[in-house]
Each structure stands twice: as C-alpha cells, then as structure tokens.
C-alpha cells in the first residue's frame, strides 16, 4: 500500500510555490494545516427568494485529521463540502487547501486543483458505468496527464489495497454497492490528494456494507494519514471520527473532538 503514501513529485513542486506565496497573506496556514475555511458564505438565488445555505463558516482541518460533518437535512452540509471541493464559487469567504487560496484562481486552475488536491467520494458513487473499473480509477490520472503505465500501476495497486483488484476489468454496474463505493474511493486516491471529501459515502449502502466502507476510510486515515472530511447522518460513524462539526442553518453550531 506504499503507493498511498507516495507524493506525486511533479505536482508537489508547483503546489509548494503557491503555498509559500499565500503564506505571506494568511495566518491560518501552517505546514500542519490541510484545510482552512474563512468567513465562507453561500447564498443561492432561487425562484422562491434568496437561500442562505452557508453563513460565515470558519474552521481549519489539520493534516491527517478525519472530520465528520453532521446536521439536519438542508442545513448546508453538502453545500459546504462542494465549496471545499471547489465545485462552485462561494458568495464570499475563502477556502485554503495546503495554503492555496482556491477561489483566487481561474476556473481552469481550480479544475487543476480539484484534480490534484481533492478526492471526491459521492453518495451515489458516480462511476462511469460503460467503462471498466480500472479506467474509472485511472480517470483522475488520465485527466492530469499521468503517463499511461504509471496510471495503470497506481490504479491497480490501490484496487489491490482495497481488495477489489479482481474486478478491474469489469463494468461498475456489475458490482455490489459496497464494491462500487470502493471503486469510487480508489478513484479519489489515485492522484494522491491533499483532502478526501465524502458526502454521505455510506448513505446508499446497507449498514453492514456501510460499516465496511467506513472502516476503509478509517484505515486510510489511521494507517496512511489521509485528511478526510465526511458528511454523514449516522451518529455512530460520526463518533468514530476524530472530530465532528455540527452544521445548523448554514452555521457551525458545534465543533467537538471525539
């Protein structure tokens, strides 16, 4: 499983430059900080009026930390995760990943950041069903322009580590939900991201399979020091993470270590 520890030297160089640049302008970036969210707000304009989905959110996440985000439905958990993952621009505020002020960048650079710094795991897996498991896992590597042989190697090693190497040539639709989510986890790891973001990764799974997938994330955190932020409705799972942030009405209601 050594592959999960290895840094991608190519990307690291350029990130470090950006880190050192942004260090001068912000105090929330020490070497041990993976993520800093500063004064983050998101207001949606919808037909029924303005919706304040996020209201001045502040917190930081240390490298290697496993954080759960909990809260009632509609409280803004997914919105928060999507902002951290740079899927959408906030109305105001900043998100720093590895010290980089993500939203100060152009859309194209943001896409590059998503590809290199962030690993996404979705509730409904979001795999590309017409192509093989291996190609799904390789996809972030392919997008980053990783050499084919390296992408293949990395993808296969991660699939082995997650115990589904034998499914590499199958189509995701032929796999069980738990297996599909493992493929999604593998995909999130292939570019060796700074943070893994998971929005209710066990939400579509039965409790036994959900526990397996959660254990896998836990292993990633413990053994391989991955930084993970997970949205969950399951209080037991939340308690098993390092720290839980409770969101209510778009605000941080509580932020406790477990």
């Amino acid at each position, binding site marked *: 499983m050594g592959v999960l520890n290895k840094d991608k030297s190519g990307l690291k160089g350029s990130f470090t430059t950006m880190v050192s640049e942004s260090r001068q302008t912000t105090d929330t970036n020490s070497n041990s900080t993976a993520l800093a969210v500063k004064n983050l707000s998101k207001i949606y304009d919808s037909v029924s009026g303005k919706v304040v989905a996020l209201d001045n959110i502040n917190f930081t996440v240390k490298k290697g930390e496993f954080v759960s985000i909990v809260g009632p439905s509609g409280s803004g958990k997914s919105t928060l995760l999507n902002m951290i993952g740079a899927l959408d621009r906030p109305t105001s505020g900043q998100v720093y990943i590895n010290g980089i002020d993500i939203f100060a960048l152009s859309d194209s650079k943001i896409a590059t950041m*998503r590809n290199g710094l962030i690993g996404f795991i979705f509730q409904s897996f979001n795999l*590309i069903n017409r192509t093989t498991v291996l190609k799904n896992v390789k996809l972030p590597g392919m*997008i980053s322009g990783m050499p084919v042989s390296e992408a293949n190697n990395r993808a296969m090693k991660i699939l082995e580590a997650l115990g589904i190497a034998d499914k590499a040539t199958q189509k995701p639709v032929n796999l069980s939900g738990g297996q599909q989510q493992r493929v999604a986890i593998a995909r999130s790891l292939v570019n060796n991201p700074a943070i893994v973001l998971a929005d209710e990764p066990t939400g579509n799974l039965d409790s036994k399979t959900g526990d397996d997938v959660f254990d896998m994330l836990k292993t990633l955190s413990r053994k391989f020091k991955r930084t993970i932020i997970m949205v969950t409705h399951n209080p037991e799972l939340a308690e098993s993470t390092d720290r839980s942030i409770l969101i209510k009405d778009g605000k941080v209601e509580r932020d406790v270590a477990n």
Partner: protein
Amino acid sequence: MHPTDIFSLSFDALVDRKVRTVLTVLMVVLGSSLVVVLNGLSAGQAEFLANQFSALAANVIYVGSGQHSYHGSSSPASIIINNAIVSKMRTLPYVEDVVPGYSGSAQIDSQGNTQRISITAMDPTKLAVILPNLQFVDGSTIKPNDPGSALVGDTIANPPGATTPFVVVGQTIKATYSYTDASGKQQQQVKNFIVSGVMQPSGNTRIDSSIVINLDAGNQLLHKSTKYDQIVVAAISPDYVDTVQQELIDQYGKTLGVTTPKSIMAVTQKAASGNAAFTLMVGIIALVVGAVGIVTTLYNSVTERIREIGTMKAIGAQNGDILQLFIVEAALIGIIGASLGIIIGMGAGYVLSIFTTTSVPGSGQIHIPPIYVPSDLLKVWLLSVTLSLAAGIYPAWKASRLSPMVALRRE
C-alpha cells in the same frame, strides 16, 4: 488528457450507445455515398460524351434531316438530300470534302448468332474524314467499289462479355432489313456481305456498333431510293468550321439540321453538367440531414450524460477535455460514416450503372461505368467529416460549459 485517453473514452461512449451510433453513422453514410454515387455517375457520363466526340474530326459539319441529326434521324427531311445538293455543297468556299451517307438498322446473322446493329452506308475510303484516327485489325482491306463487302465495328465483332468473336475478317454475314411496304405489309430485305475488315475500338459508340457498307449496297438494302440521310461536310481546316457552318445554315438552315461535333458536345455537356449540379445538391442536402442527425445524437448524449460530465469535472476535467471528448465522438462518427459512405457509394454507383444502362441512338443500351476521381472522393470525405465536426461543436460546447455543481445535482 492524452489524445489516446480522449479517443478511448469517446470510443467507449459510442460503443455504449450502439444502436444510436449506428443510426447516426448511417445518416452520414447515406449522405456521403449519395454524393459519391451521383458524382461518379455524372463523371462517367461526361467522360462517355467526351469520348464520343474526341474521336471525331474537328473540321467536320453534319448536315441531316431535322435538328441535331448526325445520327441520321428517321423523320423525313423536308427537302430531299440528293446528289444535286452534294454537288452544290462541294462548290462552297473552304469546303474540302462532302461525304453523303445512308443510315439505318438491321439484324445480322453469323454462324447461328444474331445481333441488331446500325448500318452506315458511305464511301468507306472516306471514314478517315470523320474518324481520323480509326484503325483496322490485321488483315482488313477497304473495298470502296464492292457492294458485297462490309467493315464491322468492334462492339459487333467482339460483343462485350463474349469469349469468342461474333465474326472475323473473311467470314460472311447475312443482314436482314425489316420495313413496311406501301400496302402496309411487313417486308424483309436480305443481303449477304463478306467481312473485309474489322474496325478497332474508336471510342465512338455509333461507329463501334455499326457495319459500314458502300453507298450502292446501302441504297439497295435499306430501300433509300438514293435519298441520303446525312451529309458530312469537311472544312479545309478546323479554323474554317464556323465559316462553313454559317454558310450551310444560311443556305439550308430552314430545312436541314446543321451541327458540328463541338456544338453537340456543348449542348449535351451543358445538360449533363446541369444534371450533375442538381444531383450534387441532392447529395449535399442528404449530408446536411446527416449533420442534423449528429447534432441530435450528441445533444441527447450531453443531456443523458450530464451527471457523468459533472463527475468528470468534479475530478478535475477541464472544459477543454469535455469539449474534446464530444468533438472526438462527432469526428469518429464522421470519419467512420464518410469512409464507409465512400466505399459503399463506389460499389452502389457501379451496380446502379449496370441497372440503368443508357440508351444511345443507334447503339442500343450502353453500360456507362461511373468514374471516381480520387480528388473528388477526398473532397466528399473532407466535406462529410467537416460537417460532422461542425455538427458536434454546439453540443460539445454546451457540455463543456456546464458547471460541475449544476451537472452533479441534475438527476
């Protein structure tokens, strides 16, 4: 992304929607093959026409009953073309020679085989006036004053598809001319000829499918009562063709048709190119319809794959990557469709040309094979691929501009 990765993802997407892909490719195939068929057939026709006239001397003028009657129309002339007219034409300025002739069609028999053929009756030594490059097979002799000898055209001597010649030099053929007499009864006139020569292919289908006999024999066999069907007037050089033609039109234009190979060719080629332009339009419309099909297919594809596009963007795909994925899909459809279309079009054009043999006056049904010019095929290919690409641009652009959030939230 590496081009190979883009290609393999696009290819996967097309394979995933087999039926729709096949149907879209089919639309491109139809459009491009239609253009190829129409182009090939009209090029074949044009080439055929050009061949007909290239063999003919450039300094000759045809005078005959009715308009454009160098083939010898059967409609009666309003004046009788006789030796008096021939003699008068010889005295016109810049006229080098005047060759009168009879024409008709008959059945010939040789050793149990039968053919319907054209008959050209004229002074056989004057063939060179009309067809300067005409060659004869070895052993041929031209006998101007022998009413019992005949020169046989290549298509008659060696019928297309036959393994043995119909007739060779020295053999006898029996010609049967059928006509209706004054009392309305069917009559037959029969005459035997010895084949004194066989003409090599001249390119002119009329001569190639004719036997040439002398004037006396023609007059007798075809019951012409010394009324000529046509006169070939040769000017002293091609430079004087227009002058002589004008003189002939001034004198006989009201009663006789006066034409030159050049003017017949100009008329037929104009008609042919008008046809070609029309058929090409039809083909291009078909191609545009195919392009609309591609727009629909790819547009649907974008709608269906919105989540997938969202996912791709979430894991870092650039707008350009998504754009390329969809454009490559369009290009693949275009390239496969255009390539198949050209191959199928070439085959279909050939098959069609067999079933739609062209009737040429005096020569029966003629198979004019299509002609495929490589540079034209390349143009059709490029046009099809370009149209396909153009059709792919809008859906691809739409897809690339989707915000990842919006795309992921869409079910």
